[in-house]
């Protein structure tokens, strides 16, 4: 789960990490009042769950409260499309107003989990402000990475190397140590998978000041981080993905696909997308209905798939181990009848009770095409698609 910048700032404040004074507003008048209180010149930042917001026009330096109000008028309630969002973009419902800072240099700092080190790592670069991925491709020699030890945290001798590479001013070194240690503490205690300070700036008095931050939390830590997860902003998510999540379905919408895919298991679901593409069609989604599947969950999955207007065919691919193919088939039939679904459904089912599952499908009045395996399902899909065009 992602936090908004303003939520991340509040959270990190508890760990003694202080950003320039800021306040959140959700109407143009509020933005005007906050800006006035801050003395006129402010930075206005749209709060969205996406990077690349500056380039997309979501951040503005405003010299008067009226300018900030105009900016709010132009952006609140509208969607921003950035290099990291889909073509629909994400809605702006809040704007963060902060004091301005004099920037003499920008640094990049983050903590992520590195599967190779099997621990959190600190990633730092003397060139802040840009995306770390771009930096990794264009100038990898400017990036320093050190691993945190689960007991020791960051080792001071390694941090000294980072400090020298980043050319942290002498009188800010102590603050830098504290910042890294506090970030690490926050990272562990909040079950984060990413905390990014970008940029961390060095101001005209040679102080280090964090300007922007991003926090991603581990979805699997929900059971022990309920307070943090109450900060979830569903409006930033794709509504169908949110609905799927509520039914414990893993669903990802894909742009411009014509084949709705219903699969059990993430690997098989991806393989099904790949095979669909090979057949000359395009998958409309990733959907993993999970292992121990019940009928209601399948019905909801079916409803979600057919709510996508681009869907021309359904491809159901199941390998029932723990799950039972007959129950899944029953769910499909009931949901199809309920939604009056008439389009072709191609089904490949293997494993537990698949024969019974096929019988249920055959007895129904649905437009069913049965395949013995995924390969044959792809061939059938390809033939129907050709005949249709």
């Amino acid at each position, binding site marked *: 789960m992602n936090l908004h910048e303003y939520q991340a700032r509040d959270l990190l404040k508890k760990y003694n990490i202080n950003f320039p004074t800021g306040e959140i507003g959700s109407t143009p008048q509020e933005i005007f009042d906050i800006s006035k209180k801050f003395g006129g010149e402010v930075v206005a930042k749209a709060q969205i769950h996406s990077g690349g917001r500056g380039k997309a026009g979501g951040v503005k330096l405003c010299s008067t409260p009226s300018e900030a109000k105009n900016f709010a008028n132009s952006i609140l309630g509208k969607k921003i499309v950035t290099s990291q969002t889909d073509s629909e973009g994400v809605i702006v419902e809040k704007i963060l107003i902060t004091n301005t800072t004099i920037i003499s240099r920008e640094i990049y700092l983050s903590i992520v989990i590195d599967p190779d080190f099997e*621990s959190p790592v600190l990633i730092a670069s003397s060139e802040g402000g840009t995306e770390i991925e771009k930096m990794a491709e264009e100038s990898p020699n400017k990036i320093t990475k050190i691993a945190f030890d689960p007991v020791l945290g960051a080792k001071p001798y390694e941090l000294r190397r980072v400090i020298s590479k980043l050319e942290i001013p002498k009188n800010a070194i102590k603050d830098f140590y504290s910042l890294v240690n506090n970030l690490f503490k926050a990272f562990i205690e909040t079950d984060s998978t990413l905390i990014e300070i970008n940029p961390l700036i060095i101001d005209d008095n040679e102080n280090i000041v964090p300007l922007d931050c991003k926090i991603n939390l581990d979805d699997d*830590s929900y059971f022990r981080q309920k307070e943090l997860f109450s900060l979830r902003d569903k409006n930033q998510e794709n509504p169908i993905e949110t609905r799927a999540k509520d039914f414990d379905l893993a669903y990802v919408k894909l742009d411009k696909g014509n084949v709705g895919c219903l699969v059990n298991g993430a690997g098989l679901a991806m*393989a099904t997308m790949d095979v669909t*593409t090979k057949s000359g069609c395009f998958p409309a989604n990733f959907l993993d209905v999970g292992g121990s599947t019940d009928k209601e969950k399948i019905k909801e999955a079916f409803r979600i798939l057919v709510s996508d207007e681009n869907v021309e065919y359904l491809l159901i691919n199941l390998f029932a181990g723990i799950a039972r193919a007959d129950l899944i088939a029953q769910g499909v039939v009931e949901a199809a009848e309920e939604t009056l679904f008439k389009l072709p459904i191609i089904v490949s089912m293997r494993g537990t009770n698949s024969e019974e599952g096929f019988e249920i499908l055959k007895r129904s009045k649905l437009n069913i095409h049965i395949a013995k*395996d995924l390969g044959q399902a792809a061939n059938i899909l390809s033939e129907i698609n050709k005949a249709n065009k």
Partner: protein
Amino acid sequence: MLINSETKVLVQGLGKDGSFKAQKAIEYGTNIVACVHPNKKGQLFENKIPYFETAKEAVKKTGANVGVIYVPAPFAMDAIIEQVDANLELIVCITEGIPVHDMIKVKNYMKDKNSRLIGPNCPGIISPKLKIKIGIIPGNICKDGDVGLVSRSGTLTYEAIAQIGEAGFGQSLCIGIGGDPIHGTSFIDALSYFEQDKNTKSIVLIGEIGGTKEQQAAEYIKTHISKPIVFTIAGTTAPKGKRMGHAGAVISGKMGLASEKIKALKEAGAYHSDDPSKIGDTLKNIF
């Protein structure tokens, strides 16, 4: 040896799901000798297998040497640590959704310990020859044979097993290493096992998008593996930055792309099944 005729299994996490899975393993032929539950000491599972309060006690009384974990995610870390402390040679953790911070602690704790971990978030392992399964891979789709299978997936592993069988082969051992970014047994561990295993003549590797483990496997294959390898990578059509079902399967950076993994493994001399429905055919073609 990961499992052999001496394998005695201890089960932890016998809720409704876990009990069903354990029953299936017993039906297949697995020698389950002990169950662990803090409140069921003295009772019997299925009227024959004794419950113990702790894993240590179970090992002491029954000589169990392999543990399997079906414990729910919030308690799974503790169960792994308990089995490590009980000195089990092999621990297979099926549980899905363990917080990644817990797995960091587990892996750190396991350094210098004697136990090997498979998983978490995996279907486990199965040997059709020995009729032993530790985990949830359906026994009826497996056939005794000489293909070693290692996979990051769950049901895609079953798909591969079925295809191997339909192509006229069988499996020496199937290892599901799991889909989490931080896990126990790696591709490299499994490959090294298959290279040494006399019953294995060829290897099938199922990878996924995300991380760099397939590239590391490719480096290892170049210098250590002489047996032919067929592979497929799921997720060639997956979008960047989206978590595809489980925590490990998300493309964050160029190295996580399927195309990068395919390139590395091809360069290492492995045979690519570019269509995941043709793993069996690809295997047939190289013999």
